């Protein structure tokens, strides 16, 4: 039963990339209770070696689905590509994929299902910090590496790492602190010294306000904090609290609230007297045309440009191949579905992990879970060069805290609603002192 | 006319208004022990409201209600039940999803004070015995296992009286026990009532004059919330005023 199911999944991917339409079709098929005979397994071609099982958790329903859709698609594509290129150490990758429902408790059950029933070797995915946190007790207990899809809580690679997850959490993308370290100066020098944070009233919004705010204040600027519920619809009560002398309005909301705050800032005319600054997470997976012309003039911190032509020239060949494999056009839209925008600043993590795992396994001689820590150590000391597997440019993993760094981009929405890159911030400028040292654990 | 003895229920100048409307207007009423007092009057005269005031379902706007010698004005219904006033409702009110046995049992055990959550209900021997004797009295012994929604309507009316009686009341308030019954069923009910309720002090609200004349010791006639006349059935029958406002209109 379980092997059939998992084979079916991977074979499906091998045969053709799973498109949105297929997702609908397969779910509809399942819903109708039809037999799954159409997924008949393709003959096994990898010899007697058992497959390497990879678990994947993403937000496919309920909340943050614009992320989950892309992280899932990219992860599936990358694993299919590794398999097409001969797998890892002669072994095939087998994917086990589950929905988090954006619900940490449910995700913990799914995580346990993957570890105990599917017996996965590694887990990757999810942008939800709560999902990762809920999985920590499990990955710590069973010593299963967890590769973050996009959780932004910097504490996960901070000083409590060891007690939180025992060093089994690996992150190759940015988070609230590295974003602040990299980008606060651009805002402070170019946009203004007096900042107001209007952020979602939960951990993510608070930590962005704290990380950016403390640096602005340390440099002699002034800050004001306003927090609004994460699902706020009407922002006028909050926008009217913005101090009259504010120069920079930093906002952080997800999904429709993220759109709402950008749009309503313009509706009340605040955009005329201040600059708007935000992280790309706010409208990730959402085109600027959805925000509308109200987004013109807003500054974003991107972790990987949405538009191909905004990327440094030397990375173009890799990016073109990566986009082609994942079905993304040069403007960051899904091929054949121009209403769907990529989660470009997050989904690359899922593209790179399978490759990092491949390198890690090859370097550490990993065979099974006994050498998981060696595998993690190998992965976390990788210094990736820009290439087909690393279209984001050089990516450095830091052994001390299992945290990765790559370049940041500051962009502004132009009148044609394009995100134009104004400045590239090299990864070195995003680095801060590691707060922990995980090198000593055995 | 029964001899005057201990007064069980006494209403002094009781008022009730809903918004601006005076539903009960300075009613004085006293019911002696063992008496069956009928309350009659046209629709909207305030009969049911008066019962609701006595048993605490509604709070009075003015006046006092005494039970024996104790004032019970505005006590809550469950307190009044414990003091010894039971009542039935115009629209049958039973635990309709439960069996006849459970209905009576629940009423019997309401006289107990302590409810131990760890004891099984049917182990309470005294409650069990009392329940069985109540089933005997009300004639439901053979039907005890039936869910009461399976009973005939007439039986349901009797069961409701049985429930009221099971709380061992000193005073019983009956609100139109024959409502919804045809005359034949009414007579069966009256016969039953005679057996079950002998010696009980009762205030009876009733539309069916036949039933009232048959059962009542005394009759009070309510009209627009006030007492119009009071006396034994024969006297009331002959009262001109009553004939005019009540009997006249009813039997026209």
């Amino acid at each position, binding site marked *: 039963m379980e092997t059939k199911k998992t084979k079916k999944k991977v074979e499906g991917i091998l045969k053709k990339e799973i498109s*949105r339409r297929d*997702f*609908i079709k397969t*779910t*509809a098929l399942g819903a109708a209770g039809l037999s799954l005979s159409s997924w008949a397994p393709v003959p096994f071609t990898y010899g007697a070696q058992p497959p390497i099982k990879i678990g994947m958790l993403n937000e496919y*329903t*309920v*909340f943050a*689905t*614009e992320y*989950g*859709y892309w992280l899932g698609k990219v992860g599936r594509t990358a694993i299919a590509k590794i398999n097409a290129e001969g797998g890892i150490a002669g072994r095939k990758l087998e994917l086990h994929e589950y929905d988090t429902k954006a619900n940490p408790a449910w995700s913990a059950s799914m995580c346990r299902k993957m570890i105990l029933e599917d017996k996965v070797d590694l887990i990757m995915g999810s942008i939800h910090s709560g999902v990762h946190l809920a999985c920590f007790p499990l990955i710590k207990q069973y010593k299963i590496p967890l590769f973050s899809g996009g959780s932004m809580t910097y504490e996960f690679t901070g000083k409590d790492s060891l007690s939180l997850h025992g060093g089994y959490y690996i992150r190759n993308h940015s988070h609230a602190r590295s974003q602040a370290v990299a980008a606060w100066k651009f805002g402070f020098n170019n946009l203004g010294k007096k900042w107001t944070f209007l952020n979602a*009233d939960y951990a993510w919004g608070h930590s962005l306000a704290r990380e950016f705010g403390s640096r602005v204040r340390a440099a002699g600027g002034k800050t004001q904090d306003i*927090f*609004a*519920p994460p*699902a*706020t*619809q*009407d922002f*006028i*009560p*909050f*926008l*009217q*609290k913005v101090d*009259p002398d504010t120069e920079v309005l930093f906002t952080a909301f997800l*999904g*429709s609230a993220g*759109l*709402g705050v950008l749009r*309503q800032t313009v*509706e*009340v*005319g*605040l955009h005329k007297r201040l600059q708007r600054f935000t992280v790309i997470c706010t409208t990730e*997976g*959402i085109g600027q*045309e*959805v*925000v*509308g012309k109200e987004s013109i003039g807003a500054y974003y911190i991107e972790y990987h440009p949405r538009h191909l032509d905004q990327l440094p020239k030397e990375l173009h060949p890799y990016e073109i191949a990566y986009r082609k494999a994942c079905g993304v056009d040069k403007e960051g839209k899904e091929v054949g579905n121009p*209403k*769907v*925008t990529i989660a470009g600043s997050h989904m690359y993590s899922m593209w790179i992990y399978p490759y990092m795992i491949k390198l890690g396994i090859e370097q550490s001689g990993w065979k099974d879970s006994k050498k998981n820590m060696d595998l993690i150590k190998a992965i976390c000391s990788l210094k990736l060069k820009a290439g087909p597997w690393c279209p984001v440019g050089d990516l450095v993993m830091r052994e001390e805290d299992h945290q990765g760094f790559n370049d940041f981009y500051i962009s502004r929405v132009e009148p044609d609603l394009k995100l134009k890159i104004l400045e590239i911030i090299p990864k070195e400028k995003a680095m801060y002192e590691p707060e922990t040292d995980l090198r000593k654990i055995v | 006319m029964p001899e005057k003895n201990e007064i069980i229920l006494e209403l002094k100048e009781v008022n009730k208004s809903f918004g601006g409307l005076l539903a009960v207007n300075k009613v004085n009423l006293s019911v002696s022990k063992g008496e069956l007092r009928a309350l009659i009057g046209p629709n909207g005269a305030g009969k049911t409201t008066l019962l609701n005031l006595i048993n605490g379902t509604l709070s009075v706007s003015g006046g006092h209600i005494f039970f024996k010698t104790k004032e019970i004005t505005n006590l809550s219904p469950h307190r009044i039940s414990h003091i010894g006033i039971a009542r039935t409702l115009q629209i049958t009110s039973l635990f309709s999803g439960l069996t006849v046995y459970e209905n009576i049992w629940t009423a019997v055990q309401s006289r107990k004070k302590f409810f131990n959550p760890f004891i099984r209900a049917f182990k309470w021997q005294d409650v069990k015995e009392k329940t069985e004797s109540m089933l005997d009295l009300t004639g439901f012994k053979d039907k005890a296992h039936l869910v009461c929604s399976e009973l005939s309507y007439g039986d349901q009316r009797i069961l409701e009286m049985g429930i009221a009686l099971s709380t061992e009341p000193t005073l019983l308030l009956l609100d139109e026990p024959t409502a919804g019954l045809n005359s034949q069923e009414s007579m069966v009910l009256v016969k039953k009532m005679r057996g079950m309720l002998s010696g009980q002090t009762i205030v009876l609200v009733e539309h069916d004059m036949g039933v009232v004349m048959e059962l009542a010791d005394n009759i009070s006639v309510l009209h627009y919330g006030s007492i119009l006349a009071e006396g034994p059935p024969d006297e009331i029958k002959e009262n001109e005023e009553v004939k005019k406002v009540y009997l006249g209109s009813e039997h026209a």
Partner: protein
Amino acid sequence: MVSNLAVAILNGIVWGLIMALIALGLNMIFGLLHIINMAHGALYMLGAVVAWYVIELTGNFWIGLMVAPLCVGFIGLIIERGLIRTIEDKPIITIICTFGLMLAVQQLVLMIFGGSPRRISPPIAYRFPLFELQYPAMRIMIALISIAMMIGLWIFLRKTKYGLWMRAVVQDREMAVALGIPVTKVYMWTFVLGSALAAFSGVLAAPIVSVEFMMGREVLIMAFIIVIVGGMGNLEGSVIAAIMISLIQGVGALFVPPSIATVFALAFMIIVLLFRPQGLFGE
């Protein structure tokens, strides 16, 4: 500060009227039929989604505003005939049934429409100055439409045959049957009208809140609270309740953190419920 307060009060009233409009359809179904329709939020969302497709096709907001309620009203008809009708006298069962419906509709929309929020541009882009800020005329427009709908419904309920029938059915269903009122028909049309109103408010709210498959979830609960606190079936009550909630939230947020202001608003609703369970204007 004074100007802040003035803006907060104006916005509180306007937003309250928008919320009241969202609660209006619920007030019909829930207040009149006493059916707890958990799928109401999903119908609200469906209205916005259908309107999005229509507006994509025609480019005209007002056509979307006309077409979406018709479509969703038709869906409401199917739901009433197919499901609710067989169980409408079992309130608890209707909760579960409509809850299941809500889950299914949300997932279907996710599959077809996708998960990321979409936009419906406001048909009126004009903004008028208000102290140091501006205020979007669209919101005033929605508030006015909300008032107009409320008055229209009030007249409908009191002056038309169907309205009288509806009220009669609410008063006493058996009596209504005895009087020859086609009760099942009244139920059906009330449900259809309620669904159409849900869609209508969804379309109107969409330019402010974005179109998304989950947009009905939290709104549903707020709308329920508004209808109950205002008094079931009581239109003016729910308007006042909605305005009170949003005023406490909006004005409160000037002085305390917004979550605390929301807690205050909810605590106020509890107090209203305890002292006036029949609703603000109930008898």
